[in-house]
């Protein structure tokens, strides 16, 4: 039963929608046009812009020194963080799904890192990762392994950041937990009646029923983690040798520190197209592996 569409209703609706529509245009649509416009210039922020056409893009794909490194670093980090995160969160959710004592307490424990500001995380984790005095190397020392330069070595820098990021993914655990609790008991019991064990329940009921939740978490987490900024800004500044030169940090550095607004906007545009394409791909392939209850 719809509300009668009257002129008064329309006016009210648009009145209510005005802030959101303003936001849509001024935060999303116009700035996108702005990014495209600035990317076609060599604007430095210090002098009036000069139109350079596709010069920035040509430069980024041919001679730019940082672009390829940044793409590699960003993808490595995002995929690593998201996949590890989903495995971690799903596992913990499965564990918390059982009726164990203190479940509510532990759920809070796993969730709280999500609330910590990323700068706070960076600070304490960087101290734990510290090669000479940090506690992680102390633990290694206790089992006889030589100390590792966690945040400074080429092999361990990004994985160290990934571990720190996964630690903070408390919200994913809660979402998975809620999803698990929504799996209808009737289905699980049906498997039991048919003689199936925990593994069968897991593989044939739980996982398929959870695919929408996994999909949502994967998509949202990818978008968030591709935009990683604080660890690069506060900890590594792109070191060692560009292995943590994440894209948003590169855009910030080029634009706001080195006065390359034109170039940075071109990077932003390429970045956006990439994320949009990735989102589209995830949506398109989701039909293949997602399972909806009605089917």
């Amino acid at each position: 039963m719809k509300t009668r569409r009257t002129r008064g209703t329309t006016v009210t609706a648009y009145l209510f929608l005005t802030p959101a529509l303003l936001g849509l245009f001024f935060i999303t649509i116009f700035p996108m046009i702005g990014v495209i416009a600035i990317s076609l210039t060599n604007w430095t922020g210090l002098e009036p812009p000069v139109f350079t056409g596709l010069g920035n893009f040509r430069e980024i794909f041919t001679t730019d020194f940082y672009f390829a490194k940044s793409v590699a670093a960003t993808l490595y980090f995002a995929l690593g963080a998201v996949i590890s995160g989903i495995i971690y969160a799903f596992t913990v959710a499965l564990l918390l799904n059982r009726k164990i004592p203190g479940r509510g307490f532990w759920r809070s424990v796993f969730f709280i890192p999500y609330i910590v500001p990323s700068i706070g995380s960076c600070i304490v984790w960087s101290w734990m990762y510290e090669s000479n005095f940090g506690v992680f190397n102390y633990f290694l020392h206790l089992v006889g392994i030589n100390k590792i330069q966690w945040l400074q070595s080429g092999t361990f820098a990004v994985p160290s950041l990934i571990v720190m990021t996964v630690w903070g993914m408390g919200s994913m655990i809660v979402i998975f937990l809620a999803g698990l609790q929504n799996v209808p008991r009737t289905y699980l019991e049906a498997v039991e009646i048919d003689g199936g064990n925990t593994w069968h329940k897991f593989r044939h009921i739980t996982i398929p029923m959870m695919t929408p939740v996994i999909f949502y978490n994967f998509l949202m987490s990818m978008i968030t983690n591709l935009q990683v900024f604080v660890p690069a800004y506060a900890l590594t500044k792109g070191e060692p040798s560009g292995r943590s030169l994440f894209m948003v940090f590169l855009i910030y550095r080029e634009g706001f520190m080195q006065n390359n607004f034109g170039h940075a906007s071109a990077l932003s545009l390429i970045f956006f197209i990439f994320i949009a394409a990735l989102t589209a791909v995830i949506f398109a392939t989701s039909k293949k592996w997602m399972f909806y209850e009605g089917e």
Partner: protein
Amino acid sequence: MKKLKYVLALAFVLIAASAFAAKIEITYMAWYNTTESEAADIQKTLDKFNTSQDKIHVTMIAVSRADYETKLNTMAAAKQLPDTCIMAEPMTIRYAAAGLLADMGGVYKPDEAPLKSLAFTYKGKTVGYSCADEVLLVYYNKKMFDDAKVAYPPASADKAWTWKEFVAAAKKLTKDQNGKTPNDAGFDPNNIVTFGADFNRLSWMWPVLAVSNGGGVMSPDGQRLLIGTPESIEALQAIADLYVKDHVAPSIGDKNNMPSLDVNLLTGKVAMATSGQWEIGVSLKNSLKDGLVYGVGVLPKMKKAVTYNTGGPFVAFGSSKNLDAAKAFVKWMSDESNGWDLITGGIWMPVSAKWYANETVMRKWADNDIHPPFAQYKTAVIDYAMKNAVQVPWYYFPSYDKLDTLINSGITDVWNGNVTAKDYINGILPQVQKLFDENRPK
């Protein structure tokens, strides 16, 4: 009626008087390194200016050093630059090339002006002078040298150590957890407790050795790129070898995690290290009470004895609505008597020739408890700065920060020994050359 006229006249006079006496408001932007409390010291200097005259009133804008470039850039883009500021050296000439900095040419009388080596110039115009003359030096823990029976680093440029001598001394001072030096059999490079030497690998500092070898980042006229020359590559490799081959220096990762210079020397973590003159006042003085006895010397040389000089410049922005007042303030700031505490405190060195004219005036600012013994300081620091210093290229090269970032973008691999200096430099040279040519002052 008459009363009204009287009142009006009085009001007119008052308004005119207040307008006449109204101070010109200008802003001065400066950075603090870590904590806001440093800004309080800057404020004291500004208070001095404000009370010393009643025409101009200056307000401080304090910004953390980490965000300084960003802040300046956002203000520039928004056309809201302050009237004056102390500029981050690497971007100064870029701003000059964009026409944002005022020409400081006519501000000083010829014999009043600061040293020429401290002038930031673009197209023949001076856009600012460094706030202080800062040079790179060697600092060392005297006691450690005494214990190891190694001669102190020389305190005058004509006696400067060659690189070989420097490394040899460092080796005698390096100790692993069993007390062995790199010269002894069974030396364990994975468990060094004392590092003999740390040659500062900060991106703009390390090329000083390349300059000493006849290379450097670029020629002093800013027209030729020198970072790719064999001399420069040799210097880079030598510094890296301090860790990779000679085992006398900490890895770059360890170095970045070490506390300040004074703590490193005091705790015996490092026997000698290179850094700027400011360390005397910024860090070394803090450990004097804990018993630190340190000495200062000149840098080791490869072919000739050179050091870098630098110092953030005071600038006035052309966009200032009160340009004359801004320039007057800048001139006042460069007068040593207004930063006297920073000078006697070992953080700054004077900028004008008159404080270097003879020993009497030198002693006025350099002979005190905070500075090392005057005889040593005079030859190792003052004479060194006056005769052997060359400018870091940011005094005249636009966008030195971009060049610096590019050259150092993968240098960690060189410091760690993963790639040789030669391969690394040759690998990035085309990019660097392109960036250099794009930005060369023309």
